[in-house]
C-alpha cells in the first residue's frame, strides 16, 4: 500500500489519517504533516492509524516525539488505532504508548472535551 497522509476533520477537529507503512522511510512525510498541523497551536490533533499497515520503531519514536511536543504546546493529542489493526496495535501496546497519549478505537475528541 502506498504511504499517504490525508488531512481531515472529525467533529470539526483536525485529523491526520496515516495510510500504508509508517517506517524509517515514511516518517519524514508524516513529520512534515505533523509540523504543519501543530504549527497554529490547535486545541487538539488526532493521528489516525486505522489504515496504517505497519509501524516500525522509527514510526513509534515519531509518535512519542509528537505526543511530547503536543503536550508542551497544550494540544490534546489522540492516537486512533482500533484493536482490529493487530500488527500496529500490538506494537503500540508493547511500547505502552497509551501511558503517554490516549490510544482509542475511534476518534472520540469533541470540541467540548478538548483539554479535559
Amino acid at each position, binding site marked *: 500500500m502506498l504511504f499517504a497522509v490525508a488531512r481531515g476533520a472529525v467533529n470539526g477537529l483536525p485529523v491526520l489519517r496515516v495510510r500504508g507503512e509508517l517506517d*524509517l522511510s515514511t516518517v*519524514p512525510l508524516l513529520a512534515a*504533516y505533523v509540523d504543519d498541523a501543530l504549527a497554529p497551536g490547535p486545541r487538539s490533533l488526532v493521528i489516525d492509524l486505522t489504515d496504517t499497515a505497519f509501524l516500525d520503531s522509527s514510526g513509534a519514536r515519531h509518535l512519542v516525539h509528537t505526543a511530547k511536543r503536543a503536550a508542551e504546546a497544550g494540544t490534546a493529542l489522540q492516537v486512533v488505532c482500533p484493536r482490529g489493526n493487530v500488527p500496529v496495535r500490538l506494537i503500540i501496546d508493547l511500547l*505502552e504508548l497509551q501511558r503517554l497519549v490516549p490510544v482509542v478505537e475511534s476518534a472520540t475528541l469533541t470540541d467540548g472535551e478538548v483539554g479535559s
Partner: protein
Amino acid sequence: MTQPTIPARRPPSPAPDPLRRTVDEEALARCAEEPIAVPGAIQPHGALLAVSESDLTVVVASANAAEALGTDPTGATLADLLTPAELDRLRAALAGDLAEAEPLRVAPGGAELDLVLSRSGGLLVTEWEPVAGAEQAGAAWHRRLPTVLQRLSAPTTLEGLTAVLAREVRALTGFDRVMVYRFDAEWNGEVVAEDRRDDLEPFLGLHYPAGDIPAQARALYATNWMRLIPDATYTPVPLEPPLVPGTGRPLDLSGVMLRSVSPVHLEYLANMGVTASMSVSLIDRGRLWGLISCHGYSGAHRPSHADRTAAEFLGRTASLLLHTTVGAAERDGVVAVAQREAELVAAIGRTPRTPAAALVDGDLTVLDLLPATGAAVRLDGRLHLLGSTPPAGRVAAVVPAVLRAGGATDRLTLTLPGFDDVADDASGVLAVEVGGGRGDYLAWFRPETPREVSWGGDPRTSKVTGGRLSPRWSFARWTETVRGTARPWREHEVGAARALAGHLGEAVLARAGEDDRLSAALQRTLLLDGLPEVPGVALGARYRPSEADVVGGDWYDLVPLPSGRLAVVLGDAAGHGLTAASVTAQLRHALRAALLRDEGPGAALAELNRLVAALLPGEMATAVVVQLDPATGELALASAGHLPAVHAGHGTARLVTDGRGPALGLLDVADYPQVTMRLDAGDRLLLYSDGLVERRDRPLPEGLEMVRAVVAGGAGGPQEVVDAVFTGLDPAGTDDVTVVGLALV
C-alpha cells in the same frame, strides 16, 4: 494607461525607417482600419489643411482653419496664405525628406505659427500650430543636452537608465508626472521608473493589463515616436469635407501631430484626472519595448515643438541603449548567481558532514542562490524551510510532483492539479533532486506575480481619491491576467540549481559511505567478540546486520554481577545509522553501570529510563533484562516495551508477558515491575529483537507465534535453538536481527 494619445509626427529618421520592416503587418493593417487613424477630426491647438501637392490647392480643411490662419482657406491655395519667401521655403522642404524637415515658422494672419508637413492619401498635409501658448524649456535646457546624453548612457542597469530618462523628460517638458512604462511578452505593462511632483501619489511598480493599450494603438506607437494631447478636455475640430473628394475616404491622420484621439481614451484620461498628456515610444530593435508617458494634472499643457523634439530624441537615444543596458544587467545577474553558487559549494566543502547546515544556517543560504522568496532543503529525509514557502506537509507533496513534471514551473496551479492552496507562495517552483536515491531535493519558490509586485507597497490597498477611477483599477485587472503565474525561471538559474544539487549529492554520498563505515565499526564494538564463559550457564547468540547497509540499533550484553548472578540484556534503539549506533553505545554502557548496582532488572531499567529522558531527549529504545542465579535457576525479568521473551520447558513454550513497563524514553519517570520465574534444568529462555519477527508480509502476532513454536520444538543447547529460530523465522533483511538464548547446564 496612455492610449493613443495624439497625433504624432512622422518619424524624423531617414526613410525607409528600419522599424517599418519589423512591425507586424497585420497589426498595422488592423490599425489602419481602426478609427484611431481616421477620426475625421483634429485637436484644436492647431489647424490642418490637406492640399494637392501639385498646385497647393486646399482639398480638406479643419473647421477652425479660418480663425487660426486669419483667412478662410476654402478654395484657396497655400500661395494665398504664405508670403513668397515662406512659399519658397515650403517648396524647398517638399523637395527633401519631410520627416527630417524642421517646422517652418510662418505668420499668415500676423501670429507666428509652426508649419509641419507630412503626406497622406496622395495629399500634402499641413499642420499649423501657434507658437504662442506653447511652453518652452528654454535654451538653458538645450545647452545641457550633452550632459543629459552623458547621464543617459552612464547607467549600467535598466533601473538607472529609465530613472534618468523619466527625470530628464520631465525637466524638459514640465509635465507633472513622467513614467517609463515597460511591456512584458504578453503586452502587460509595468511602471519601471517615475519622476513626479512631490505631492502626487506614486505609480511606480504598478502593472497594467495588455488591454489598456489596444493592439492597434501599439502598432501605431511602433511607427510613431510621439503623441501629444495638450488639453484632454478639448472639443474635436471636424475636417471638412469629411471624405476626401475623389477618393471618397476619410483622410488618414496616423502621421499627423494634431490627430484627434479616441473619445474612450479621453474619458480614461479624465477618470485619472489627467488634463494633458504626451507619450514617446521606446523601441528596442524594432519592437515596441515601452513608453515614456507624461501626465499633466493642472490644466492644458503644450510643450513647444522644439522641446517635444528633444523629448523624442531622448526616447530614441534611450531606445538604442536599452539592448546593451538590459544585456549588461542580465550578464551581471548571471555572474551573481554563479558566484553565489560557488560560495555555497565552498560552504558545503567546509562542513561536508553537515551539508544542510551549510545551506540553511550560514550568512549565505540556499535562498540567496537565485531570486526567489522561499526555499526548501530536504536532506537525510529532513526538511528545512527558508523564507516564504507553503507549509512543510505541502512542500513535501508539491516538490516531488514538480520533480516528476520536469523540475520547474512558473504556473504551478495551472500545470498540476491539487495545489490551489499553495498558489500564493509557490506559483513558481524550481526543484532539483539531490542524488543518493533518498528522495532528497532542493527547491525554490516564487509567489504568484501579483503578490510579489504588491510587496513594493500594495497598490490594491491605496486609496482612490476624489471618486475618480485610477490606474489602480487597471492594476486589479492586470492582477487577474497573471493569476496563478510567477516570474519565470531563467536558464542560468535552473543551471545553478542543478549544479548546486550535483555538488550536494556528491557530498552526501561521500558522507553516507563514511557514516556506514563509522557506524559499522561502532556497532562491532557493541557486540561481544565471544560469549563469556559463565559457570553453570549455557549461552547462545547470533547477530545479523541489516542488508540495507544501514546500521540498526540492536545490542546485547552479558554482565556478571557481584552477587554471582548473571545479567543478560537485549535492547534495540529506535532508528538507524550513525545516530542509532551512538545512542546504542550510550545505552549499553549506562545499563551496564545500572546493573552493576545489583538492584535487579526493574531498578536498572528505571535508572536507564531516567537517563534517556534526561540525556537523550527524543530518543526511544526498548530493552529486556534478565537476571539469572545459576545456582538456583531463579530468574528475574523486566522489559521496557520490548517484545516478549520466550520461556520453553517440558515440551512447551510461552511468551513472557509479565514484568513489563513502557519503552525507554517514553516517560520521564517510570517504574519497571519485574517478574520472577524459575529456569529449570532443560528450560530455555530466548530473547530477540524486532528484526527477527518484523516482516511486512507477515503480521507481528504470527511472527511471535512462530518464535514460540520453534523454541517449543527446538532441541539441543541454546545456540542450536538460536540457530533454529533464525532458520525458521527467515527474518527480512531490512533490519538487524539479534537473538540470545540461555539455559542452565
